[in-house]
């Protein structure tokens, strides 16, 4: 199933990816080809088949609710694009 340019733009916004018009066009063409390829899964009979999200039978792993040492403030901020005091400087969230 091919995908339309408008849908690709919608997906890009969901994925928080800014694409130029040229990239959007190329992306539309490439995604269409890939989606056509994966469409073959439609013909695989899967009635009554349980989805496999995880290869191992695992259950929740817990630890004691006891504090352990964590990163220092300096270590945590060391890669910050914009360090402001002991905080991450970020763009305004609310207008």
């Amino acid at each position: 199933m091919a995908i339309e340019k408008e849908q690709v733009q919608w997906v890009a916004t969901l994925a928080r990816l800014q694409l130029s018009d040229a990239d959007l066009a190329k992306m539309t063409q490439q995604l269409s080809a890939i989606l056509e390829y994966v469409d073959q899964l439609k013909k695989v009979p899967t009635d009554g088949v349980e989805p496999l999200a995880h290869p191992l039978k695992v259950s929740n792993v817990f630890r004691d609710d006891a504090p352990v040492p964590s990163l220092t403030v300096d270590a945590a901020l060391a890669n910050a694009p914009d360090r402001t005091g002991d905080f991450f400087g970020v763009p305004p969230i609310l207008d």
Partner: protein
Amino acid sequence: MTGIERTALELLQAQAQGETAEAITQSFLQAIKQRDPHVKAFLHVDEAAALEQARAVDAKRKKGQPLGKLAGVPVAIKDVLCTNGQPTTCGSKILQYFVPPYDAHVITELKQADAVLIGKTNMDEFAMGSSTENSAFFTTRNPWDLERIPGGSSGGSAAAVAACEAPLSLGSDTGGSIRQPASLCGIVGMKPTYGRVSRYGLVAFASSLDQIGPFTHDMSDCALIMEVLAGRDARDSTSINQPVPPYSKTLDQPVKPLTIGVAKEYFSEGLDKEVEKSIRDALKVYESFGAKVKEVSLPNSPYAVAVYYLVATAEASSNLARYDGMHYGYRTKKLDPALVEKQGAMIATFMQSRGEGFGKEVQRRIMLGTYALSSGYHDEYYGKALKVRRLIKDDFDRAFAECDVVMGPTSPTAAFKIGEKADNPLAMYLSDIYTISCNLAGIAGISIPCGFTKSGLPIGLQILAAPFEEEKLLRIARMHETASGWHTKRPKM
């Protein structure tokens, strides 16, 4: 073997006989200086730090202190693993200047084993690719033919060992990213069972598929480094609490009786004739040991690539959402006023940082995964893929009920030329046709060298085993090695 062509085991023996770790590390640093301008395996080498580690090993030995299993042995690390205080870029502009404040679990294990961490290696960006052409920085070359790709995504780690720039390296494998480059570079590459090795500190691509594993020249080294890497780690809740067998102690015991499953679906069109011949010759070697070769069917394997490009991309779209330019990584310098008007400064920053920072392949996969998970398409794409994933796993369960292992080619072709598949994402994806099912099912897999094409390009034999059967898998791989000698070949550089 002499000099830099030696295996880790030979280097350990050499140190027991008086060679210093410092001299050994110096020789590999020299090799990197001479060869890497052509091979381009490394993104980052810290000579001073490597020599300091080596000297520390020599000092320990001199004082008579106990030494770890990999004492003085240089190990190259795929740049997808966090190394405290050392750059970790994942081959991406988005993490170009990122320096992790912690070590991955496997790094801690290597340090405790007294290994010498010699450098970080090149890779396809965020482990997405099969040729290392998707690195934001440069393309690594195949040491057997510098015009060809080394495979991917762990191309740098594979090339480093093949070119004898390091005797050991680490990679990560989500759809074949260790096994395929091992095959194309003529060395051993192993993907352990999912959960065998802790993923703490491995930058995540697809959390239900990723595993860390080694590249080595031969099986003895593979068994040894697996003892160091495997084991439960409380910081990775998917790491399994199963004891680690002494792989190197049992390695030389052949497996008898041995039934080898050969999937008929793996020998269809698209498989290069020279690769096929090499695999069939390898099977004859096993038959000469008394093994029984039996045809099996993995009927859902033709769907593996389609399933992978929905499941892995869906997981990736979630894992890569963290790269938003807020706490670390690339943040856009100049906001587009029209975009700010439409989306607000915060979302505009996300969109531009990610749009500018991520390469095209990464963007493509994020888009695919986002689409597959989006409202209205979730069940049709992601949900359906998970069901077919179950069928793929069931195929292996059935095969392993009648066989010890499944064997076949690792890659449908030998190494292709740089640029040959770069414009065709789908053609590139199909390079992983034999390796992908292994990750979807979570089973163990290894690629070992089994020959060369007429033009001198390496060919790899893939051996797959049921979950947590690494001990048996390693012994079976070793059987081929003892008869064939491919593991002693080194490229002329």
